[in-house]
């Protein structure tokens, strides 16, 4: 390749770089980026002028060069395009680098002062003919080439940063899908939304869950909400009313004149064999005074997933439906006198979906709940009731009181207020009976009464 061709290729490449920067100027308006671009643009133009001069020198040496439209002179601070088409035979002049007046003025200015529109205009004038395609058709390959330009051989070009493509993460996990699709119900006012979605996940996976918490915090309501949302048939079994454990879980013998004695399976057997996959709520599991229910239910809750209806060798065995799900609730605490025992370690272990310890709602959420459940309550009244509840719960956590105010009590008080009772009277009526009458000025009842009276009318 002749030296002329090499120089021309070099010029073409530089023109391409200028076009690249021109595009940058159009796309980005940031000050910092603009300064780099203008600097690079000036450097490249200087180099380009030098190369063009070399081409001209070579042509002059061979005395074959005629004036043509390729006769372009450039200046670092401005571009002047000089053509003299009137006389094609005229040879090249040496003063092609002469600066116009505007370029001289531009030289005194810092790169930052150069107007972006001026730069664009100069480029437009410069490249409107032969480099039109290059200007407008920069593809990915050009970007890559420019980014990898050899700085040692060519003029300085600012560091080109090719933006890294962000990693694509498709969240197709079940919790991700649930979060995207299912709205949290209004009644579900717990502070952490994730609790709701993990509970739904457990329902789907058949991982039983146990919810503990103070009375009236919404454990049973939560069970009903989950059953309603998952659209599963709902069965509830309260352990507190158990008289005959085997009759409750397995079934009982009945007698009729026509059929004689026959075995009637319990409602629990119907629940676990429900083909739709039942949502089975085991309510108040710590209130089973017999203590046998937990033992009978062990094989149902663990991996065996079956229930033998009697103790004979050829006993009928009922298998648990794959879609069945157990949701248990319990009160654990010193004030729950009706609870016969704490939860057994092995029993707790059966609830592999997790043990959720629910507390009372935060004040704001409890207020929202009151307004939702008792639509006619005024917001101020709802706020004062929940403030009172928060105060009493504070005393309970400091162990000054043995009983806290539950959400259920707040709802009862709100309903009384709506029905015409004064707020203070409603609170006295609802809350005071939970605190025993004792002699003295420092009893629990006195503290609660003071808290009620501090609410005002």
């Amino acid at each position, binding site marked *: 390749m002749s030296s002329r061709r090499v120089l021309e290729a070099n010029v073409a490449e530089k023109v391409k770089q200028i076009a690249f920067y021109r595009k940058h100027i159009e796309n980005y308006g940031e000050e910092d980026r603009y300064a780099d671009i203008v600097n690079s643009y000036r450097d490249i133009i200087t180099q380009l002028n030098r190369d063009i001069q070399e081409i001209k020198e070579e042509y002059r040496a061979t005395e074959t060069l005629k004036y043509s439209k390729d006769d372009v002179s450039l200046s670092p601070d401005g571009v002047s395009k000089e053509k003299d088409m009137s006389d094609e035979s005229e040879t090249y002049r040496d003063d092609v680098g002469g600066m116009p007046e505007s370029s001289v003025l531009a030289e005194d200015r810092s790169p930052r002062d150069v107007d972006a529109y001026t730069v664009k205009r100069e480029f437009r004038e410069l490249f409107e003919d032969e480099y039109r395609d290059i200007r407008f058709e920069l593809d990915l390959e050009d970007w890559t080439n420019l980014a990898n330009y050899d700085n040692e051989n060519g003029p300085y070009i600012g560091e080109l940063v090719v933006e890294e493509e962000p990693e694509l*993460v498709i969240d197709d996990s079940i919790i991700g899908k649930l979060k995207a699709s299912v*709205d949290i119900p209004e009644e579900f006012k717990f502070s952490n939304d994730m609790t709701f979605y993990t509970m739904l996940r457990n329902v789907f996976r058949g991982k039983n869950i146990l919810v503990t918490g103070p009375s009236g915090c919404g454990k049973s309501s939560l069970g009903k909400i989950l059953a309603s*949302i998952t*659209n599963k048939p709902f069965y509830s079994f309260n352990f507190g009313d158990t008289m005959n454990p085997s009759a409750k879980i397995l079934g009982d013998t009945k007698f009729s004149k026509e059929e004689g004695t026959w075995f009637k399976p319990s409602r629990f057997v119907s629940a676990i064999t429900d083909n739709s996959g039942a949502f089975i709520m085991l309510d108040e599991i710590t209130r089973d005074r017999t203590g046998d229910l937990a033992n009978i239910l062990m094989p149902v809750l663990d991996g065996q997933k079956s229930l033998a209806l009697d103790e004979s060798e050829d006993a009928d065995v009922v298998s648990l439906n794959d879609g069945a799900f157990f949701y248990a609730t319990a009160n654990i605490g010193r004030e729950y006198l009706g609870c016969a025992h704490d939860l057994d370690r092995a029993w707790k272990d059966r609830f592999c979906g997790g043990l959720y310890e629910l507390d009372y709602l935060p004040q704001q959420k409890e207020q929202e709940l009151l307004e939702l459940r008792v639509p006619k309550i005024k917001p101020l009244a709802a706020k004062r009731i929940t403030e009172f509840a928060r105060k009493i719960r504070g005393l309970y956590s400091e162990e000054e009181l043995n009983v806290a105010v539950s959400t259920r009590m707040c709802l009862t008080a709100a309903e009384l207020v709506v029905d015409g009772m004064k707020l203070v009277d409603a609170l006295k009526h609802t809350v005071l009976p939970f605190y025993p009458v004792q002699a003295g000025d420092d009893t629990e009842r006195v503290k609660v009464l003071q808290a009620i009276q501090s609410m005002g009318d």
Partner: protein
Amino acid sequence: MVRAKIRKTFYWHKVAKLLLEHGLMPKDINIILKRVFPQANINGRHIGAYKRRLIDDGLLVKNLPKTISVNEGMHMVEGLLGAEDQFIYNCVIGSQKRTLKCYEYKLTLLTVEADDDIEGWLRQINGD
């Protein structure tokens, strides 16, 4: 540091993607989805947006030839619907029904109130 693009997935996306890969149009896919998710609040625009997202992410080729009919798509989808997606669909519908129940309760309450007021006025007029 480049932040990852996190794409949400809905319960109908898996089925819709499969049908898009067979070159079906979003409006046809909507008909098929209504078959498996009859109460779902999805329309052709949702599916079209999902299609554009897949093309932008490079997960779907543009202008794929149609390889199955709508009827074939219906049969295919019924067999491929996963338990997980069906469960989430049930939850979506259950959640929406609960929201409606909440409004139903409020509306009923208002209606009863209005009736009581009217009855009260009538009693006053009649002098009862």
